[in-house]
Protein backbone atom coordinates (compact mmCIF):
# COMPACT_ATOMS: atom_id res chain seq x y z
CA UNK A 1 0.00 0.00 0.00
CA UNK A 2 1.31 3.42 -1.01
CA UNK A 3 -0.07 6.60 0.50
CA UNK A 4 0.13 9.63 -1.78
CA UNK A 5 -0.17 13.06 -0.20
CA UNK A 6 -1.30 15.21 -3.12
CA UNK A 7 -1.66 18.93 -3.47
CA UNK A 8 -5.17 20.05 -4.37
CA UNK A 9 -3.89 22.40 -7.08
CA UNK A 10 -1.73 20.00 -9.07
CA UNK A 11 -1.14 16.33 -8.32
CA UNK A 12 -4.68 15.70 -7.11
CA UNK A 13 -6.05 17.17 -10.33
CA UNK A 14 -3.40 15.30 -12.32
CA UNK A 15 -4.56 12.02 -10.74
CA UNK A 16 -8.11 12.95 -11.67
CA UNK A 17 -7.04 13.69 -15.22
CA UNK A 18 -5.19 10.38 -15.45
CA UNK A 19 -8.50 8.73 -14.55
CA UNK A 20 -10.47 10.66 -17.16
CA UNK A 21 -7.88 9.78 -19.77
CA UNK A 22 -8.10 6.11 -18.73
CA UNK A 23 -4.34 5.92 -18.20
CA UNK A 24 -3.43 2.66 -16.46
CA UNK A 25 -1.26 2.69 -13.33
CA UNK A 26 -0.75 0.35 -10.37
CA UNK A 27 -3.85 0.26 -8.16
CA UNK A 28 -2.26 0.05 -4.70
CA UNK A 29 -2.13 3.78 -4.08
CA UNK A 30 -4.38 5.75 -1.75
CA UNK A 31 -4.58 9.46 -2.33
CA UNK A 32 -4.82 11.92 0.54
CA UNK A 33 -5.66 15.42 -0.62
CA UNK A 34 -3.82 18.32 1.00
CA UNK A 35 -4.61 21.98 0.36
CA UNK A 36 -0.90 22.34 -0.50
CA UNK A 37 2.06 20.04 0.10
CA UNK A 38 3.20 22.76 2.50
CA UNK A 39 0.58 21.26 4.82
CA UNK A 40 2.62 18.07 4.99
CA UNK A 41 3.72 17.35 8.50
CA UNK A 42 6.43 14.81 9.25
CA UNK A 43 4.02 13.33 11.77
CA UNK A 44 1.54 12.55 8.95
CA UNK A 45 4.24 10.66 7.12
CA UNK A 46 5.23 8.71 10.23
CA UNK A 47 1.56 7.93 10.95
CA UNK A 48 1.27 6.44 7.46
CA UNK A 49 4.29 4.20 8.05
CA UNK A 50 3.20 3.33 11.56
CA UNK A 51 -0.11 2.14 10.13
CA UNK A 52 1.65 -0.12 7.69
CA UNK A 53 2.19 1.93 4.54
CA UNK A 54 4.90 0.40 2.33
CA UNK A 55 5.67 3.71 0.68
CA UNK A 56 4.70 7.36 0.81
CA UNK A 57 4.56 9.73 -2.15
CA UNK A 58 4.35 13.45 -1.72
CA UNK A 59 3.24 15.16 -4.92
CA UNK A 60 3.23 18.91 -5.26
CA UNK A 61 3.35 21.57 -7.93
CA UNK A 62 6.29 22.21 -10.22
CA UNK A 63 9.02 24.12 -8.40
CA UNK A 64 8.25 27.81 -8.70
CA UNK A 65 4.55 27.16 -9.34
CA UNK A 66 3.29 26.62 -5.80
CA UNK A 67 -0.06 28.29 -5.28
CA UNK A 68 1.23 29.39 -1.88
CA UNK A 69 4.70 30.25 -3.20
CA UNK A 70 6.90 28.09 -0.93
CA UNK A 71 4.76 25.13 0.05
CA UNK A 72 6.37 22.56 -2.20
CA UNK A 73 9.86 23.60 -1.08
CA UNK A 74 8.82 23.23 2.54
CA UNK A 75 7.44 19.80 1.68
CA UNK A 76 10.71 18.79 0.03
CA UNK A 77 12.67 19.73 3.14
CA UNK A 78 10.26 17.73 5.29
CA UNK A 79 10.45 14.74 2.97
CA UNK A 80 14.23 14.83 3.30
CA UNK A 81 13.94 15.07 7.07
CA UNK A 82 11.47 12.17 7.10
CA UNK A 83 14.04 10.12 5.14
CA UNK A 84 16.62 10.68 7.90
CA UNK A 85 14.06 9.67 10.52
CA UNK A 86 13.18 6.47 8.66
CA UNK A 87 16.86 5.68 8.39
CA UNK A 88 17.27 6.08 12.14
CA UNK A 89 14.76 3.34 12.84
CA UNK A 90 16.08 1.10 10.09
CA UNK A 91 13.46 1.69 7.37
CA UNK A 92 14.71 2.36 3.84
CA UNK A 93 14.64 6.12 3.07
CA UNK A 94 13.55 5.33 -0.51
CA UNK A 95 10.15 4.43 0.89
CA UNK A 96 9.31 8.11 0.76
CA UNK A 97 9.74 10.32 -2.27
CA UNK A 98 8.74 13.79 -3.43
CA UNK A 99 7.32 14.34 -6.92
CA UNK A 100 6.49 17.56 -8.75
CA UNK A 101 3.87 17.90 -11.48
CA UNK A 102 1.23 20.25 -12.79
CA UNK A 103 -2.51 19.59 -12.92
CA UNK A 104 -2.20 18.94 -16.67
CA UNK A 105 0.25 16.06 -16.22
CA UNK A 106 -1.99 13.01 -16.01
CA UNK A 107 0.68 10.88 -17.61
CA UNK A 108 3.34 12.14 -15.22
CA UNK A 109 1.10 11.10 -12.31
CA UNK A 110 0.72 7.61 -13.73
CA UNK A 111 4.47 7.38 -14.30
CA UNK A 112 5.18 8.60 -10.77
CA UNK A 113 2.90 5.98 -9.24
CA UNK A 114 4.44 3.30 -11.45
CA UNK A 115 7.96 4.29 -10.39
CA UNK A 116 7.04 4.38 -6.74
CA UNK A 117 5.29 1.04 -7.05
CA UNK A 118 8.43 -0.47 -8.59
CA UNK A 119 10.67 0.99 -5.88
CA UNK A 120 8.45 -0.34 -3.12
CA UNK A 121 8.15 -3.77 -4.74
CA UNK A 122 11.94 -3.84 -4.92
CA UNK A 123 12.18 -3.10 -1.20
CA UNK A 124 9.46 -5.55 -0.27
CA UNK A 125 6.58 -5.01 2.14
CA UNK A 126 7.17 -2.75 5.11
CA UNK A 127 8.21 -4.66 8.22
CA UNK A 128 5.58 -2.56 10.01
CA UNK A 129 2.75 -3.82 7.82
CA UNK A 130 -0.04 -5.64 9.50
CA UNK A 131 0.84 -9.30 9.55
CA UNK A 132 -1.88 -11.38 7.97
Amino acid sequence: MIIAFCCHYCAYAAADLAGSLRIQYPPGVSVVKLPCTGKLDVQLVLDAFEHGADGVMVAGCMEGDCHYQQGNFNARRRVNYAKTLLQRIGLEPDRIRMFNMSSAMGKKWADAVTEMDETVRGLGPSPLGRRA
Partner: protein
Amino acid sequence: MIVAEQKPLKEIQSLVGEAQTVLIVGCGTCVTVCFAGGEKEAGILGSLLRMSARMEGHEKSIGEVTVQRQCEWEYLDAIGDRIAEADIVLSLGCGVGVQALAERYPDAIVIPGLDTKFMGLPLEQGVWAERCAACGQCILGLTGGICPIARCSKQLLNGPCGGSSKGKCEVNPEIECAWQLIYDKLNAQGRLDLIMEITPPKDWRTGRDGGPRKIVRQDLRLVVTEEA
Protein backbone atom coordinates in the same frame (compact mmCIF):
# COMPACT_ATOMS: atom_id res chain seq x y z
CA MET B 1 14.97 31.18 25.57
CA ILE B 2 16.51 27.93 26.69
CA VAL B 3 17.85 26.12 23.66
CA ALA B 4 18.07 22.35 23.58
CA GLU B 5 18.58 19.53 21.11
CA GLN B 6 17.04 16.10 21.04
CA LYS B 7 19.39 13.31 22.06
CA PRO B 8 20.25 10.74 19.39
CA LEU B 9 17.49 8.14 19.08
CA LYS B 10 19.88 5.33 20.08
CA GLU B 11 20.71 7.06 23.34
CA ILE B 12 17.04 7.66 24.11
CA GLN B 13 16.31 4.01 23.36
CA SER B 14 19.02 2.83 25.69
CA LEU B 15 17.71 5.12 28.45
CA VAL B 16 14.22 3.72 27.92
CA GLY B 17 15.62 0.19 28.06
CA GLU B 18 13.12 -2.53 28.78
CA ALA B 19 10.36 -0.22 30.02
CA GLN B 20 7.01 -1.25 28.52
CA THR B 21 4.85 1.79 29.18
CA VAL B 22 6.55 5.03 28.29
CA LEU B 23 5.08 8.49 28.72
CA ILE B 24 6.76 11.20 26.66
CA VAL B 25 6.22 14.59 28.25
CA GLY B 26 6.74 17.56 25.95
CA CYS B 27 6.99 21.17 27.06
CA GLY B 28 5.09 23.98 25.38
CA THR B 29 7.52 26.82 26.01
CA CYS B 30 11.25 27.24 25.16
CA VAL B 31 11.83 23.79 23.72
CA THR B 32 8.74 24.12 21.54
CA VAL B 33 10.07 27.22 19.85
CA CYS B 34 13.49 25.65 19.36
CA PHE B 35 11.80 22.58 17.84
CA ALA B 36 13.35 20.14 20.28
CA GLY B 37 10.67 19.05 22.73
CA GLY B 38 7.24 20.47 21.91
CA GLU B 39 4.04 18.65 21.08
CA LYS B 40 5.19 17.96 17.54
CA GLU B 41 8.55 16.56 18.57
CA ALA B 42 6.89 14.44 21.26
CA GLY B 43 4.57 13.00 18.61
CA ILE B 44 7.38 12.27 16.20
CA LEU B 45 9.55 10.68 18.86
CA GLY B 46 6.59 8.57 19.99
CA SER B 47 6.05 7.26 16.46
CA LEU B 48 9.74 6.48 16.02
CA LEU B 49 9.97 4.60 19.32
CA ARG B 50 6.80 2.62 18.61
CA MET B 51 7.87 1.69 15.09
CA SER B 52 11.36 0.81 16.10
CA ALA B 53 10.14 -1.40 18.95
CA ARG B 54 7.74 -3.16 16.60
CA MET B 55 10.51 -3.75 14.10
CA GLU B 56 12.51 -5.41 16.83
CA GLY B 57 9.57 -7.67 17.46
CA HIS B 58 8.00 -6.25 20.60
CA GLU B 59 5.23 -3.76 21.24
CA LYS B 60 5.71 -0.88 23.61
CA SER B 61 2.92 1.32 24.83
CA ILE B 62 4.15 4.84 24.21
CA GLY B 63 1.97 7.82 25.01
CA GLU B 64 2.59 11.53 24.65
CA VAL B 65 1.40 14.53 26.57
CA THR B 66 2.62 18.11 26.37
CA VAL B 67 2.28 20.59 29.21
CA GLN B 68 2.50 24.33 28.76
CA ARG B 69 5.49 24.65 31.08
CA GLN B 70 7.27 21.64 32.50
CA CYS B 71 9.11 23.80 35.05
CA GLU B 72 6.03 24.68 37.14
CA TRP B 73 4.19 22.41 39.54
CA GLU B 74 0.73 23.58 38.47
CA TYR B 75 1.18 22.23 34.99
CA LEU B 76 2.70 18.98 36.22
CA ASP B 77 -0.10 18.29 38.66
CA ALA B 78 -2.51 17.93 35.77
CA ILE B 79 -0.73 14.87 34.38
CA GLY B 80 -0.41 12.85 37.59
CA ASP B 81 -2.64 10.02 36.34
CA ARG B 82 -0.67 9.59 33.16
CA ILE B 83 2.60 9.53 35.10
CA ALA B 84 1.29 6.95 37.53
CA GLU B 85 0.53 4.56 34.64
CA ALA B 86 3.97 4.84 33.09
CA ASP B 87 6.97 2.61 33.76
CA ILE B 88 9.20 5.42 32.66
CA VAL B 89 8.70 9.12 31.98
CA LEU B 90 10.68 10.48 29.05
CA SER B 91 10.90 14.22 29.47
CA LEU B 92 11.35 16.48 26.46
CA GLY B 93 11.74 19.51 28.69
CA CYS B 94 15.03 21.27 29.36
CA GLY B 95 17.05 20.08 32.34
CA VAL B 96 14.77 22.14 34.58
CA GLY B 97 11.69 20.38 33.26
CA VAL B 98 13.21 16.93 33.78
CA GLN B 99 14.08 17.80 37.37
CA ALA B 100 10.71 19.38 38.04
CA LEU B 101 9.04 16.13 36.97
CA ALA B 102 11.42 14.02 39.04
CA GLU B 103 10.89 16.23 42.08
CA ARG B 104 7.10 16.43 41.80
CA TYR B 105 6.75 12.70 41.23
CA PRO B 106 9.37 11.10 43.48
CA ASP B 107 8.33 7.55 42.59
CA ALA B 108 8.51 8.07 38.85
CA ILE B 109 11.59 7.14 36.85
CA VAL B 110 12.27 10.23 34.79
CA ILE B 111 14.80 10.32 31.95
CA PRO B 112 15.90 13.20 29.71
CA GLY B 113 15.23 13.13 25.98
CA LEU B 114 17.04 16.40 25.31
CA ASP B 115 20.47 17.82 25.79
CA THR B 116 20.00 21.33 27.15
CA LYS B 117 22.52 23.54 25.43
CA PHE B 118 22.32 27.24 26.31
CA MET B 119 20.32 30.42 26.68
CA GLY B 120 20.12 32.08 23.34
CA LEU B 121 18.07 33.20 20.40
CA PRO B 122 17.25 32.11 16.87
CA LEU B 123 19.40 34.00 14.35
CA GLU B 124 17.23 32.68 11.54
CA GLN B 125 14.88 29.72 11.25
CA GLY B 126 16.89 26.66 12.22
CA VAL B 127 19.94 28.49 13.65
CA TRP B 128 20.34 29.32 17.35
CA ALA B 129 23.16 31.13 19.11
CA GLU B 130 24.18 31.51 22.74
CA ARG B 131 23.71 34.92 24.32
CA CYS B 132 23.74 34.71 28.12
CA ALA B 133 25.51 32.43 30.60
CA ALA B 134 23.52 33.52 33.67
CA CYS B 135 26.61 34.84 35.44
CA GLY B 136 24.46 36.48 38.08
CA GLN B 137 25.79 40.00 37.69
CA CYS B 138 25.11 41.47 34.31
CA ILE B 139 27.75 43.69 32.73
CA LEU B 140 25.99 44.36 29.44
CA GLY B 141 25.77 48.03 30.44
CA LEU B 142 29.54 48.27 30.01
CA THR B 143 29.86 46.25 26.87
CA GLY B 144 27.38 47.77 24.49
CA GLY B 145 24.79 45.05 25.03
CA ILE B 146 27.13 42.27 23.86
CA CYS B 147 27.97 39.66 26.46
CA PRO B 148 31.65 38.76 26.80
CA ILE B 149 30.85 36.00 29.28
CA ALA B 150 28.63 34.06 26.91
CA ARG B 151 30.15 35.15 23.62
CA CYS B 152 33.90 35.50 24.20
CA SER B 153 35.41 32.01 24.20
CA LYS B 154 37.68 33.00 27.08
CA GLN B 155 35.08 35.01 28.97
CA LEU B 156 37.48 37.93 29.03
CA LEU B 157 36.43 41.11 30.78
CA ASN B 158 39.20 43.09 29.10
CA GLY B 159 39.42 42.02 25.49
CA PRO B 160 40.14 41.34 22.81
CA CYS B 161 42.94 38.86 23.29
CA GLY B 162 45.79 38.42 20.84
CA GLY B 163 43.85 35.69 19.07
CA SER B 164 41.29 38.04 17.60
CA SER B 165 41.80 38.21 13.85
CA LYS B 166 39.69 40.01 11.25
CA GLY B 167 36.75 39.97 13.62
CA LYS B 168 36.93 36.23 14.24
CA CYS B 169 37.86 34.30 17.35
CA GLU B 170 40.97 32.13 17.33
CA VAL B 171 39.03 29.28 18.88
CA ASN B 172 37.05 28.79 15.68
CA PRO B 173 36.89 30.99 12.59
CA GLU B 174 33.10 30.65 12.61
CA ILE B 175 32.86 32.43 15.95
CA GLU B 176 32.70 36.18 15.84
CA CYS B 177 35.10 37.79 18.30
CA ALA B 178 32.81 39.19 20.97
CA TRP B 179 35.35 41.83 21.88
CA GLN B 180 35.61 43.01 18.28
CA LEU B 181 31.82 43.33 18.31
CA ILE B 182 31.93 45.21 21.60
CA TYR B 183 34.64 47.55 20.34
CA ASP B 184 32.85 48.23 17.05
CA LYS B 185 29.56 48.91 18.77
CA LEU B 186 30.98 51.25 21.42
CA ASN B 187 33.15 52.96 18.82
CA ALA B 188 30.12 53.59 16.61
CA GLN B 189 28.23 54.99 19.57
CA GLY B 190 31.18 57.13 20.71
CA ARG B 191 31.26 55.32 24.05
CA LEU B 192 34.71 53.70 23.96
CA ASP B 193 35.50 55.29 27.30
CA LEU B 194 33.39 52.54 28.88
CA ILE B 195 36.04 49.95 28.16
CA MET B 196 39.14 52.09 28.51
CA GLU B 197 39.36 51.38 32.23
CA ILE B 198 40.59 47.92 33.19
CA THR B 199 37.65 45.95 34.53
CA PRO B 200 38.66 44.10 37.72
CA PRO B 201 38.18 40.35 37.98
CA LYS B 202 34.58 39.31 38.18
CA ASP B 203 33.12 38.08 41.43
CA TRP B 204 32.12 34.62 40.36
CA ARG B 205 30.26 33.92 43.58
CA THR B 206 27.21 35.29 41.80
CA GLY B 207 27.76 32.63 39.15
CA ARG B 208 28.08 28.90 39.58
CA ASP B 209 31.17 29.31 41.76
CA GLY B 210 28.89 30.25 44.63
CA GLY B 211 27.06 26.92 44.41
CA PRO B 212 23.46 26.42 43.28
CA ARG B 213 21.60 29.71 43.23
CA LYS B 214 18.23 30.73 44.54
CA ILE B 215 16.17 33.90 44.51
CA VAL B 216 13.75 34.73 47.33
CA ARG B 217 11.33 37.62 46.95
CA GLN B 218 9.54 38.29 50.22
CA ASP B 219 7.18 40.71 48.45
CA LEU B 220 5.91 37.84 46.34
CA ARG B 221 5.82 35.01 48.82
CA LEU B 222 2.45 33.85 50.04
CA VAL B 223 3.80 32.47 53.33
CA VAL B 224 4.09 35.29 55.84
CA THR B 225 7.60 35.37 57.24
CA GLU B 226 9.12 37.43 59.99
CA GLU B 227 10.72 39.96 57.67
CA ALA B 228 7.51 40.42 55.68
